[in-house]
């Protein structure tokens, strides 16, 4: 009776797998930071809260730090572990995803920096405020969905991001049109113009989330394709 040979199916390279899992976890936590920043930025916007806006700006260092940390981790795994197949696609995708994450954080900062520009007690337009709030919630939801799709490698959920982003884009245009028609009060117009910039930032966050979705689809399928072409609108799933 010999000794049973080792079971080749026992998982190994455990440290490497742990490291990949850790990077993914860190990335998701990075998105949690983004959502927290987004919430604060929206609240600061709604209430002209300068202090909260400053907090968002200061806190962005954490997101940037997260970006650098994961970037370094991915490079280290490339150099040391020679990842292949799904691991390779995931790590390559992570480099894009964290860049999107970092950009989302920057957009929150941009929104926060608009708040002092619009003055201390500016006249406001309830319609624009309401649309901005709606937009903010929609964007928040999209980012959440991107995280979920990333966590579960759900390609369908990822592709759905483009559809949902359409609503954000529509709201962005609506805010722009409303700003054009907001009236003759100079201060109000200035405020409305500033809000179009904020809406633009939110719209960009939505786009970033869609880009994350494209990376998820790449990890799953191995094929990269854009969900939405800026010049042609969203691509339907049948294509």
């Amino acid at each position: 009776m010999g000794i049973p040979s080792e079971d080749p199916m026992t998982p190994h390279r455990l440290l490497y797998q742990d490291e990949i899992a850790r990077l993914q976890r860190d990335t998701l936590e990075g998105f949690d930071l983004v959502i927290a920043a987004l919430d604060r930025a929206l609240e600061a916007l709604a209430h002209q809260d300068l202090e909260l806006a400053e907090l968002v700006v200061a806190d962005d260092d954490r997101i940037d730090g997260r970006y650098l940390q994961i970037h370094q981790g991915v490079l280290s795994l490339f150099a040391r572990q020679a990842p292949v197949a799904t691991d390779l696609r995931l790590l390559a995708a992570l480099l894009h995803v964290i860049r999107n994450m970092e950009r989302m954080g920057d957009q929150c900062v941009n929104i926060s920096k608009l708040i002092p520009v619009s003055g201390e007690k500016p006249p406001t337009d309830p319609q624009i405020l309401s649309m901005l709030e709606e937009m903010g919630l929609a964007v928040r939801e999209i980012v959440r969905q991107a995280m979920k799709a990333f966590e579960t490698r759900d390609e369908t959920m990822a592709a759905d991001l483009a559809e949902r982003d359409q609503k954000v884009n529509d709201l962005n245009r609506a805010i722009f049109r409303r700003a054009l028609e907001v009236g003759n009060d100079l201060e109000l117009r200035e405020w409305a113009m500033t809000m179009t910039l904020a809406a633009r930032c939110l719209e960009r966050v939505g786009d970033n989330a869609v880009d994350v979705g494209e990376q998820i689809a790449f990890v799953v399928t191995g094929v990269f394709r854009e969900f939405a072409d800026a010049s042609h609108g969203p691509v339907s799933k049948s294509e």
Partner: protein
Amino acid sequence: MAPAGRPAPAERIRPGRASPPCAGACRRARREPASGAQHAAGHHLKPVDQRRVAFFRGGDDGVFQRAVAAGGAEAARLADGGDQRLDQCAGLIGIGEQHFDHLIDRHRVMLGVPAVKIGHHGDGGVAKLGLAGQFGLGHIGHADHVAVPAAVEPALGQGAELRPLHRQVGAAAHMRHAQAGQGRLQVAAQARAHRVGHGHMGHAAGAEKAFLPRKGAVDELVGDDEGAGRQVGPQAAHGAERQHIGGAQCFECRDVGVHYGEHQAIRGVSLDFGLREITALIGPSGCGKSTFLRCLNRMNDLIPNTRVDGQVLYHGQDLYSEEIDPVQVRKRIGMVFQKPNPFPKSVYDNVAFGPRVVGMEGDMDEIVERALIRCALWEEVKDRLDANAFGMSGGQQQRLCIARALATDPDVLLMDEPCSALDPISTGRIEDLMTELKERISIVIVTHNMQQAARVSDKTAFFTVEMADGEKHRTGVVVEYADTTTIFTKPRDERTEDYVTGKFG
């Protein structure tokens, strides 16, 4: 380089012969190695030594049989079957192919008959070492003297002197001229007689908090006839101290150089190795990685004509100090080799071998189980502990060898290309194992596989060869030492970059 006075030919040992007590004199003499005490026959051997003698005298069948008769069960068991015995001798003596040939063909010093060679490929023309460092056992430890097992030494009348071989330039030359008829013990005695002082091996200042017991202290422990080595077990040797390992460094090497005869193999190596870290040594063939690794547990002592200079501090103690017993060094600093080299014995006996020979106390079953569990081998072999280790796959054999090295509870594991004979799955298993082991011990690994260094190590040292005088003199030097990620993502030195990117080497 002048040889010391040649001693009178030592009397041949007759294992098992009653010996008058002389431990006191021995100890005295060991503390005064320069006195060159001629303590002729009459050393009493501890039982465990007798077994070692029996074991190592395998070449001469007559003597061997007598030794077996006298040496008891262990020797008999080791001797079960000529080929096996030789095999084990080959493994245990731990000398490489080249030197092995040398011994066999010219002197038949140890084995007397061509036996199984150890299949290491050459490394800069230097014989590779086999198992010796794996246990740091006495018998191998004192194979310090190339072919002279420890236990033989006291009986040679030279036991009083336990100076390591790095002071023995020329030993091999004398062995070469020895007459076969003189008998191997005399040969060895002569060899050891020709010691010369050497370079500038520094001494650790103020090593009061000794991590390794001083030689004298070891003497006190093992000199006790009744307890024959018992107290040298891990509990005694480092049970308490281990808690107090200070600092983050395990090794501090300063300007280490190694000469093989006239040839300088490595020069100016100054590296610190972190505690409970994995450090990889990489570089092209012949750059001295293995040579340097062997300095870390004094394995180079085993190669004739070798001189080590510079300073190797192990937990702050000078490893090459007069006071340090190489036996203890190798017990604390285990070694695993390229090719899995289990004994042709059962799984259990393989693992129990080291602890038995050093006389470790405690439940042997438990010791074996613990070592096998640490090597993630337990589940695979627990129902087959009595099966021959040769029935295992290569990867399992290598993990068994690691278990065997761990059984004596070392503090450091030196690994010389431990995976180069294994398939990727087994390699992955060993690498995972290393990561687990580093929670408790420090590991230094030499590897030709850059990716392996990249995967497992925390720090990486890149060695290269410097040519002098055309290509006549090739000396290994360290080019760069840094965090592994740094070495593989942004090396500082262009030579490192060229090597890790595969442009040369």
